[in-house]
């Protein structure tokens, strides 16, 4: 049994020694010898106090006195002197060895080498001290155990003013109770995390100033329970930068949203990033609907996609800015003409990052300009026509009158025929002149919601007799229900009469007159077709030109289709013509829907 204990005693990693009450060493193990560097023989001739540096001896004596007095073991940390003169930090547990009658006979000590731990502690201190963030350690009660230099600077305290104090001293008064609560909660289920997730945290400086901060928390398990290491960052500058940035952004947003101009920002691929309110109003799409999509997938009409892509490519290819004009098709199908000014924004490497397009809706402007141009043209034509009418009126009257005068006074049939021709021809000139004058003196049109179906029926009625006599069959196809168009009723009747008249002229031998009405997006499409002789391209391309006519001498004025085209265009519509020689001709008229009526009746 004794051998057994001796073995344990010798094998212990901790140094174990036994000395008399006055400190004379009686027994030591190998670890004791290893720790101090003295051999067993040397140690057995020494007093325990020889191992303690002069300045710490009192601390040791006090501890021993306390142990002897209370009979309880005592623990303390101290330096040991080694044989080579160096010192080694140790932790000593000392207790009195007693006889059976309770009298202390000697002192036993277990001595642990603290070099490793002290080294680790020193390293920890260095790490903490050199950290760019403020670090502080608190215990479960919130008492500050450790702070680094950064904390001193952040909060304006000396570390001696903080250590041993409650950490709440660093928290603004109005947040203290909440902070204490959360701190206790953290100690209960501790894990590393950021403090005050999603909430602004503030610190309180010694001078009473508050500042925004961010805190990371790490629990540290120690022999004295859980301690918490808090890493503190002053984010005043970041907050200030954020504020400046937000202000800047709000300012830009306000400018973008207030401007009447359309502003679209796209990335280098052409995907929409910004779509201001003017864009939303013009297109009927919300910003949420279009962001991330390609401009040409949404607004550009098929004919213009290539052009828009080419302009975009030029911007990406290094052209810093350019101007372009195109149509944008809104959700409702209506086209708006937009004049764009495009600018590129490049990144720090000079690569195109964004393209900013600022656009003005010039639809109305264009229409007004066009109307003005037409009005001016017509006014000019009017001046010319009435001047001409005045100049030729009298000579024409002389020719007409003389022919009539002679016609009444001759019996010669040949003469009569010739004179009658003169009369007819002068009347033909008169007709052209009158039509020209009427064209230039057209009254301003009155627009209202008009049912094209009714116009078609009305116009056909006027031709009823003629249709019956000329072996022409009418083929009417009308989509129902058909929304109204916004137009001048009388002018549309004039259009119908002109087109039907043309068709009838094309079918002297009879045939089929086709009339169709269909809705196409936001237009009503009117088709007027015949199965007549058709037209070759050189004629087809000129049918709308003024004074162009294919009719026999004396039958047409060459103004009918010019007037028709004028009326349709004034209504914001289009007219086109298709023709195949020997097969027939079709006129297609597209008139915009009456917006108000259409909106009211879905």
């Amino acid at each position, binding site marked *: 049994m004794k051998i057994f204990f001796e073995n344990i005693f010798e094998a212990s990693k901790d140094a174990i020694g036994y000395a008399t009450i006055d400190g004379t060493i009686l027994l030591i193990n190998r670890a004791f010898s290893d720790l101090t560097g003295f051999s067993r023989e040397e140690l057995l001739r020494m007093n325990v106090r020889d191992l303690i540096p002069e300045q710490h001896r009192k601390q040791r004596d006090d501890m021993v006195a306390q142990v002897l007095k209370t009979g309880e073991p005592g623990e303390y940390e101290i330096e040991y002197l080694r044989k080579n003169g160096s010192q080694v930090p140790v932790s000593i547990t000392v207790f009195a060895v007693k006889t059976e009658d309770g009298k202390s006979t000697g002192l036993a000590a277990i001595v642990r080498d603290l070099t490793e731990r002290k080294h680790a502690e020193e390293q920890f201190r260095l790490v903490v001290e050199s950290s760019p963030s403020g670090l502080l350690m608190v215990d479960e009660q919130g008492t500050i155990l450790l702070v680094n230099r950064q904390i001193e600077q952040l909060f304006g305290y000396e570390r001696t003013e903080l250590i041993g104090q409650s950490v709440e001293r660093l928290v603004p008064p109005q947040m203290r109770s909440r902070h204490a609560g959360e701190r206790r909660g953290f100690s209960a289920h501790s894990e590393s995390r950021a403090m005050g997730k999603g909430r602004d945290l503030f610190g309180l400086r010694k001078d009473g100033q508050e500042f925004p901060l961010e805190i990371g928390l790490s629990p540290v398990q120690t022999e004295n329970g859980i301690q918490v290491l808090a890493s503190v960052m002053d984010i005043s500058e970041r907050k200030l930068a954020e504020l400046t940035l937000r202000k800047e952004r709000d300012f830009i947003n306000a400018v973008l949203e207030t401007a009447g101009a359309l502003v679209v920002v796209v990335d280098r691929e052409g995907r929409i990033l910004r779509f201001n309110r003017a864009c939303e109003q013009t297109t009927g799409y919300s910003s949420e609907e279009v962001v991330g999509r390609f401009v040409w997938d949404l607004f550009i009409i098929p004919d213009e996609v290539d052009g828009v892509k080419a302009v975009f490519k030029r911007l990406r290819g290094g052209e810093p800015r350019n101007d372009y004009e195109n149509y944008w098709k809104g959700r409702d199908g209506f086209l708006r003409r937009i004049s764009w000014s495009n600018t590129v924004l490049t990144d720090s490497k000079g690569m195109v990052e964004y393209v900013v397009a600022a656009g003005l809706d010039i639809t109305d402007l264009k229409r007004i300009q066009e109307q003005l141009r037409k009005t001016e043209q017509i006014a000019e034509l009017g001046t010319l026509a009435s001047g001409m009418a005045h100049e030729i*009126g009298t000579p024409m009257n*002389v020719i007409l*009158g003389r022919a009539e005068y002679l016609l009444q006074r001759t019996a010669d049939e040949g003469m009569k025929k010739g004179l009658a021709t003169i009369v007819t021809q*002068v009347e033909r000139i*008169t007709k052209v002149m009158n039509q020209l004058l009427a064209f230039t003196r057209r009254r301003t049109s009155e627009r209202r919601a008009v049912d094209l179906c009714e116009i078609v029926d009305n116009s056909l009625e006027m031709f009823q007799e003629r249709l019956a006599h000329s072996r022409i069959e009418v083929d009417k196809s009308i989509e129902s229900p058909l929304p109204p168009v916004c137009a001048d009723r009388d002018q549309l009747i004039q259009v119908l009469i002109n087109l039907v008249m043309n068709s009838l002229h094309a079918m002297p031998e009879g045939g089929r007159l086709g009339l169709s009405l269909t809705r196409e997006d936001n237009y009503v499409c009117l088709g007027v077709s015949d199965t007549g002789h058709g037209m070759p391209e050189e004629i087809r391309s000129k049918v709308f030109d003024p004074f162009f006519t294919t009719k026999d001498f004396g039958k047409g004025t060459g103004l009918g289709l010019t007037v028709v085209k004028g009326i349709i265009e004034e209504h914001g519509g289009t007219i086109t013509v298709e023709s195949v020689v020997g097969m027939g001709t079709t006129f297609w008229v597209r008139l915009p829907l009456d917006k108000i009526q259409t909106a009211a009746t879905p």
Partner: protein
Amino acid sequence: MVVLIVEDDREMRSLLCDELYDLGLSIREAADGDEALRLVLDARPSLILTDLRMPAGGLDYISRLRTFAPGVPMVLITSFGDPQTKADALAIGVEAYFDKPVRLSDLRGAIQRLLGPSLSRKIH
């Protein structure tokens, strides 16, 4: 029965004279507005046939003519006049209005209507 013909174009005037002469009417001719106003007092015509646009012409001239010869029917012939001219002329009290070129048959009809049955006998 005297008819006053006012027309600055010689050929036109000649045509009207020939036509009206054949209706058996006496004719006085004037080539401008001033001459017409002088003649109307002198000749006391039963009918005035006049152009509008000519020297000393215009709607002012028509008004004055109306004042000088109240009750004498007036026939106005003017080159492709616009509807406004026609309305103004009718407001002044012109009895008949024609745009040039006028058909002689139409003109004759108007003259017959204005001069009444006294003329009808003389038409061949």
